[in-house]
């Protein structure tokens, strides 16, 4: 049996607004094998970051189970959760606002160590900070600098060192390279990959950048308005996208090569509101293939159309001979 570090079942997160309930994350299910990377992709507002935060319970889930190493953490008390978070860390998108400007690099990295009483004694702690800085490729001379003195790439390295300080098993990377220039982006992506190999880390990699997620992930889940519309191993998803939204998303990536001709999958119309969405396919209004009879009758379910390839498009499911 596969060694699953994380299992998410029927996860929901609704926000109350003046116009009704906003369904930010709406019934998400997936399992994640230890040592692997799940890429969570989608456009702004699709609920990918909310999903990451709910899994860590930085936001309280509305409903559903989050099973981490066989234990449902969605019902744990605050203090129990605090203990749990040692194993689950997050790296944020913006290295400019996620670091305390009044603390030095060593103070920032040492904070979780002190807070969780992992290492006692100042000398031992300092040694650990230096070791972590070395792991993420930060030169020792930066130990007493402040975040504003460093560039984006180095700041992101501090964020990674801080996350690693707890020796976590799972790290949620929320757009860790989106704010960085391409040459620096590649440095950070390589670092994250090396760390995964060395420390056996499991990642959930949240991004809107499809070429990055393809490079980085084992499995990819495509989200649209709070739901997973397609999930497959990275290679399969890119070679054989089935959901019309995935197809549109992939065909929209600009490729940095000469004479690259391809058919764009066009989208139309307005985006369905995530506030009290109707019980139909949420992509239907933008989908050129939409068939009112099929797509607007019920909420589509994820069905495994081939090994490990899940799709939530009733039209395609029908085409492939599944009962919808």
């Amino acid at each position, binding site marked *: 049996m596969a060694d699953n570090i994380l299992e998410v079942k029927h996860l929901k997160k609704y926000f109350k607004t003046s116009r009704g309930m906003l369904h930010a994350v709406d019934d998400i299910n997936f399992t994640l094998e230890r040592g692997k990377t799940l890429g969570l992709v989608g456009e702004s507002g699709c609920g990918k970051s909310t999903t990451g935060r709910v899994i860590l319970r930085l936001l309280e889930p509305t409903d559903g189970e989050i099973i981490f190493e066989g234990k449902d953490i969605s019902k744990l008390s605050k203090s129990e959760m605090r203990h749990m978070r040692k194993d689950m860390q997050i790296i944020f998108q913006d290295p400019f606002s996620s670091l305390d400007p009044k603390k030095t690099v060593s103070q920032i990295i040492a904070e979780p160590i002190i807070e969780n009483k992992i290492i006692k004694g100042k000398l031992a702690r300092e040694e650990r900070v230096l070791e972590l800085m070395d792991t993420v490729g930060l030169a020792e001379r930066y130990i007493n600098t402040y975040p504003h003195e460093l560039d984006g790439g180095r700041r992101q390295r501090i964020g990674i060192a801080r996350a690693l300080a707890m020796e976590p098993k799972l790290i949620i990377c929320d757009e860790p390279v989106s704010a960085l220039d*391409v040459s620096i982006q590649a440095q950070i992506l390589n670092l994250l990959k090396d760390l995964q190999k060395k420390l056996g880390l499991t990642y959930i990699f949240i991004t809107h950048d499809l070429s990055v997620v393809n490079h980085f992930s084992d499995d990819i889940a495509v989200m649209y308005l709070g739901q997973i519309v397609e999930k497959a191993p990275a290679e399969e998803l890119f070679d054989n996208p089935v959901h019309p939204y995935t197809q549109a998303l992939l065909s929209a*990536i600009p490729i*940095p090569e000469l004479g690259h001709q391809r058919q764009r999958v066009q989208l139309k119309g307005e985006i369905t509101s995530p506030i009290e969405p109707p019980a139909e396919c949420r992509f239907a209004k933008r989908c050129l293939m939409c068939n009112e009879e099929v797509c607007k009758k019920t909420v589509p379910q994820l069905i495994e159309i081939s090994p490990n390839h899940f799709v939530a498009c009733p039209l395609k499911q029908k085409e492939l001979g599944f009962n919808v």
Partner: protein
Amino acid sequence: MDKNEERDILRIENLNVRFETEDGVVHAVNGIDMKLGYRKTLGLVGETGAGKTTTALAMLRLVPNPPGVVECDRLEIDGQDVRGMSASKLEQVRGKEISMIFQDPMTALNPVFTVGEQIAESIEIHEHLSKEKALEKAGDMLELVGIPRQRANEYPHQFSGGMKQRVVIAIALACNPKLLIADEPTTALDVTIQAQVLELMNELKEKYDTSMIMITHDLGIVAEVCDDVAVMYAGRIVEQGSLEEVYGKTMHPYTEGLFNSLPNIKNRQAMLKPIHGLMPDPTNLPEGCAFAPRCNYATEECKKACPALRNVGGTHMVACVRYEKDPNFMIDRRKQNG
């Protein structure tokens, strides 16, 4: 003026921009020459701090002074010298002959005016139309960018990000400019919306014979919309030429580094080869080639003097000493591409 020169919408020679701040002089743009033919699109590529936006602002004479100091030997738009232009003349040129699309559509629009009024404003000023006629034309522009004209009476906050960027494009194109400068026009947008906006810009460019400078860090976007490419590093152009030349026969090590940093969508096993190190401090640029400290091919020679852009065939120019010293020198990307 010979015939050849007449065909250029934009000519810049030896453009220098520096910012004189309390912490020292920031050398943002260091001696740029640029030429753009009618109906052509030039992609200006480079990372944060390369001087792309500053170059564009200098063309419009929008660099704030102080602290900015702009010097150049030549700055002509459609044959007119922009350098000595009076403020009132400049106002006629901006928006009419040359207009700019800014990166962030969320802040480029005025929140207290309707989008119709904002589009009509530049039409009213430049085409000397009455308010009614200008609003009428603003409606046409909205339709052109794919927004129903009924929405002209709505305010920016009622539009999504992609729609706002379409409004910004409508404003920029309202007076049918000869030159359009687009500064990262799709960076703030989602990929599917980005694809729509790029398609729209391509269509409008053809329809109105507009020349365009596309400022971007995305080599994919350049491949999709540009005829020519100029790669900038630390305020200088290090490589330029047609899209075919720069992408197909890449010569500068920095351009190669940019390509190697991108994940390859067709080969997911390929390891990324990042450029090591960081961009140099613009207050303290190295004496020789600014890229030398990060360059895998750098020799002692590279650290001595700043290389000049040299023509290497066709329109292809490159600024790298290695080619001058060794006619057989080749970067890895060229060896692979044959």
